[in-house]
């Protein structure tokens, strides 16, 4: 019995020896050509580690890419630009190949040398990009763009037509006790505080510390009136579709169609008199991306007009690829294309775009105080 037990037990020294032998064997094997993939083929084969918003991860497109190229896409979701920035700063190109970001955020990434320029001319799908995005001024850099344009929209107020006979004219309804627990606001420091800034007449992303303090007080009042702070637009869609809330502030008018597709009640959207801010998002290539070639192929594949249209038909953000419009119409979404102004993205160039707040830490402190209040 003792002998059997001794055979089954492994001493610490024995364990370390086995691990050492296994490690040495693995290291030796990696030097044998063909036994383990080399770095060059890894760049080509992938998998593509893609950090993005969940509404853009379309399983059939990812499966199609795998079938076509043999490369898998490893999708990693995030909710907020600052969260993605933190992840790339920690993980770098070894861990992430492509990262999504909004408007001025790619500029910050590039300035901090976390990303590299994408040669748009080498991507076939870029041939049909709207000129507004092909030459998007804030993303232009020597040799191409610092982010490949994906989609766009203005932040807006989405409301249930059953409870609002005419479009609300002010963001104030979110604070109105008449709608207590019947409204929602997209959660996060860079969403809630900019909304309060609009109400106070301040620049959404350039508030000074005293202005942030005022916005925080307003946000605390807002918190007492709303049902919840959804962390993704899909959650706002669900809340509106099942009539848990009657109005919500979120990142795109397309939620109106998402609610419709989910079998919800008729919705409307509006940009209140205090104004709004908008976004254009895109894919950035991480500096030192381990799977660069596969990542560029993935951009080309998922942004070709068919796949772009498929993504827009699910996410209902504004398309950046002109050729996708005709496909969307063929898909029976002509009404949405017209109502959401998809054919004319010119207003994008006039929108106040999202950017990293000057006092980002203070935005975060203020938001945490709101949550804890």
């Amino acid at each position, binding site marked *: 019995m003792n002998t059997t037990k001794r055979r089954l037990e492994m001493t610490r020294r024995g364990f370390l020896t086995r691990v050492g032998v296994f490690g040495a064997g693995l290291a030796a094997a990696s030097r044998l050509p063909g036994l383990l993939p080399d770095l060059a083929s890894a760049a080509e084969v992938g998998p593509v580690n893609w950090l993005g918003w969940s509404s853009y991860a379309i399983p059939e497109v990812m499966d199609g890419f795998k079938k076509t190229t043999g490369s898998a896409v490893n999708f990693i979701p995030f909710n*907020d630009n*600052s*969260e993605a*920035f*933190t992840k790339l*700063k920690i993980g770098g190109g070894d861990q992430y190949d492509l990262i999504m970001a909004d408007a001025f955020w790619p500029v910050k990434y590039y300035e*901090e040398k976390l990303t590299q320029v994408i040669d748009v001319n080498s991507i076939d799908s870029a041939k049909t990009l709207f000129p507004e995005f092909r030459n998007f001024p804030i993303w232009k850099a020597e040799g191409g763009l610092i982010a490949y344009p994906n989609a766009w929209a203005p932040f807006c107020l989405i409301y249930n037509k059953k409870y609002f006979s005419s479009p609300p004219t002010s963001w104030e309804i979110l604070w109105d006790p008449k709608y207590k*627990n019947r409204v929602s606001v997209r959660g996060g*420091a860079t969403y809630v505080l900019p909304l309060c800034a609009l109400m106070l007449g301040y620049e959404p992303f350039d508030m000074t510390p005293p202005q942030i303090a005022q916005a925080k007080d307003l946000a605390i009042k807002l*918190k*007492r009136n*709303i*049902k*919840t*702070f959804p*962390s993704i637009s899909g959650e706002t869609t669900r809340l509106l579709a*099942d*009539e*848990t809330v009657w109005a919500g502030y979120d990142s795109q008018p397309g939620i109106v169609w998402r609610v419709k597709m989910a079998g919800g009640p008729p919705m409307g959207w509006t940009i209140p008199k205090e104004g709004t801010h908008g976004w254009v998002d895109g894919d950035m290539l991480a500096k030192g991306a381990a799977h660069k070639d596969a990542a560029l192929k993935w951009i080309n594949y998922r942004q070709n007009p068919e796949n772009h249209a498929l993504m827009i038909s699910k996410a209902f953000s504004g398309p950046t690829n002109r050729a996708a419009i005709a496909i969307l119409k063929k898909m029976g979404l002509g009404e949405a294309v017209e109502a959401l102004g998809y054919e004319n993205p010119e207003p994008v160039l006039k929108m106040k775009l999202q950017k990293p707040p000057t006092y*980002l*830490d203070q935005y*975060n*402190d203020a*938001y*945490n*105080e709101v*949550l*804890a*209040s």
Partner: protein
Amino acid sequence: MAVYSLWVSKSFRIVPIWTIQNYLTFFQQPSYARILFRTAWMAGVITLITTSLAYFFAYFLVKEGGRFQRTLVLLVIVPFWTSFLLRTYSWMTVLGEKGFINQILTYFGLVERPLTFLLYNKFAVIVASIHLFIPFAIISIYTALEKMDFNLVDAAKDLGAGPVRAFWYVTLPQTLTGIWASILFVFIPALGLFITPALVGGTDGTMISNLIVNQFEYYRFGLGAAMAFVITFFVILLLLTMQRYINLEKIYTQ
């Protein structure tokens, strides 16, 4: 983590200068202390209700389970095979305005309009957490009850003790180890709840972990690490206090 808690982060940069500023920030901002207190209170309520329900269920299992005892224990363990996230999501479909409970209530005419207070508040966090943690509590208490000699209860009754007295003086003291184990296994993870308050807590059910995650998402590793350490110190203090009154070793080796 310990090192980070003694450095500060500014605008996505870590400043490697030794300071206790992060800990001072935590204790100087009333909102952080308030949310720590709220978290401890919610974890306490979750622990109390979970342990009480688990005790009744484990007692029923041991006394009345009969030949189905093993099957019932297996059924208690089954939820462990499903994802924590999925179990939390399932409560959204149960407690929502168009959820299972409201559909039943409106179908039978018990309410005119769906109840709105079931989801997106502290109540929802407590209910969902009880469901998440109750298997830990049941197994802890069941183990203690299974080892108990019920002849002692019969002896107490023979000597004139009523059922309540016999339970209080005989059953309860013999199963205290299981109760303490249940308290530890529920209270400590409940202090660190993140997904449940994020999904079903609404604006009022936020707990300390949600704020800690916010710090890390904004690259504020220093403050985030300091907040996490405050929770750790709190748990260690709790264990040391418990150590004075109960034999923790017996609980761990139960």
